[in-house]
């Protein structure tokens, strides 16, 4: 049911952008396809995949989840659905517009969502001891060294759930992995609790996921 609210909010958001554009020539119309992409079937499917596998592994109720590179926060409602509305979920993205749009998308959806405009690595470093679960579904957008640094710095008990892909033709995908093994290898976790590959339903690329400590 929360997904229905998410989609309705996305439509309202897009409608608002269009209406404003009629009077303000500087309106960023690209946010419209960007919001559509963030809520499309493949994005939601890959995030549901993460939550489904992660929730099977986590035996303790997390108190604090950080999502690095959270975009418009669409993972938030799925996490709240799995872990309850009391768990704190920090949705961290360096794009300053993600906070406003994210709050609009998650309006009236139950959960303790906290949008942060920050470099995800810097945000996480200042909260190392408190984070129960660190999630990153945007590893392919981040410097490999930064992703590795997050893993190296984290508290040993913090569970990580990271995703990457082999979709090299996208300009902003600066850190793809050719296969799951490469992703597992560079993360260099002490313990891999789960790993897998999800082929894209329509395009010729794969998404990889690793959950571990």
């Amino acid at each position, binding site marked *: 049911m929360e997904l229905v609210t998410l989609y309705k909010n996305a439509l309202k958001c897009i409608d608002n952008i269009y209406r404003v554009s009629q009077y303000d020539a500087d309106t960023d119309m690209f946010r419209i396809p960007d919001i559509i992409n963030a809520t499309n079937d493949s994005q939601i499917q890959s995030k549901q995949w993460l939550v489904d596998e992660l929730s099977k592994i986590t035996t303790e109720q997390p108190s604090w989840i950080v999502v690095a590179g959270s975009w418009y926060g669409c993972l938030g409602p799925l996490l709240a659905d799995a872990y309850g509305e009391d768990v704190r979920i920090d949705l961290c993205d360096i*794009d300053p517009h993600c906070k406003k749009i994210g709050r609009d998308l998650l309006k009236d959806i139950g959960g303790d969502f906290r949008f942060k405009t920050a470099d995800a690595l810097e945000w996480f470093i200042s909260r190392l001891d408190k984070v129960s679960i660190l999630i990153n579904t945007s590893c392919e957008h981040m410097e490999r060294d930064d992703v590795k640094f997050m893993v190296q710095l984290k508290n040993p008990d913090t569970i990580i759930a990271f995703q990457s892909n082999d979709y090299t033709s996208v300009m902003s995908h600066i850190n793809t992995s050719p296969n799951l093994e490469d992703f597992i290898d560079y993360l260099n976790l002490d313990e891999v609790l789960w790993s897998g590959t999800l082929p894209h339903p329509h395009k010729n690329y794969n998404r990889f996921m690793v959950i571990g400590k």
Partner: protein
Amino acid sequence: MNIIFVKHGELYSSDHVNLLYNKLSIYYPHAIFWCYTENPYNICSEVNIIPVLIKPTLKKWWNKLALFSNDMPFEGECLFFDLDMEIISDPSSFITDYTKLTIINAYYKNELCFEHHAYNVKINSSIIAWTHGGQQHIWDKFLINKDYYMRKYAGIDRFLVHENIMINTFKDGIVNSVANKLYENAPVNMYNGISYSL
């Protein structure tokens, strides 16, 4: 005076760099030549190599924006050429002002109409002139939200125009676009992505 090339990836070879050096050094005998690249193999020794920045990792033409960083080793006037340019004669009479960021006017698009949200543009950054130290703001702006800009814009030309960077254009006639020939006497032929045999 600095003349700069960017060679990133496999599309162009050291031969393209060396040929441009050989042609341009005739008209700019006192210039310092540079190539920003991750693979300097076989680039002639007269061209100084600038290793590609470790961070941020960028693909293709987005690397050109790094040239505006104050961390680049240039001093004074800077002149950039894409590698798919053929130097026919001396271009210097068209390239006289380095005080402002100056780029080619894409004359072949002059008559076209674009909707604003198509983010298309009527410039072409195959030749750029500027003074080192004066365009750091471009690099700074890009770095703040680079992932979003690379999603939104197909290339750096669209980024420069639609993010309201102050731009001058060279007088028409500096280049002849091989796909849209108009200036047959231009000092530079521009292949603009068309297959270009050396």
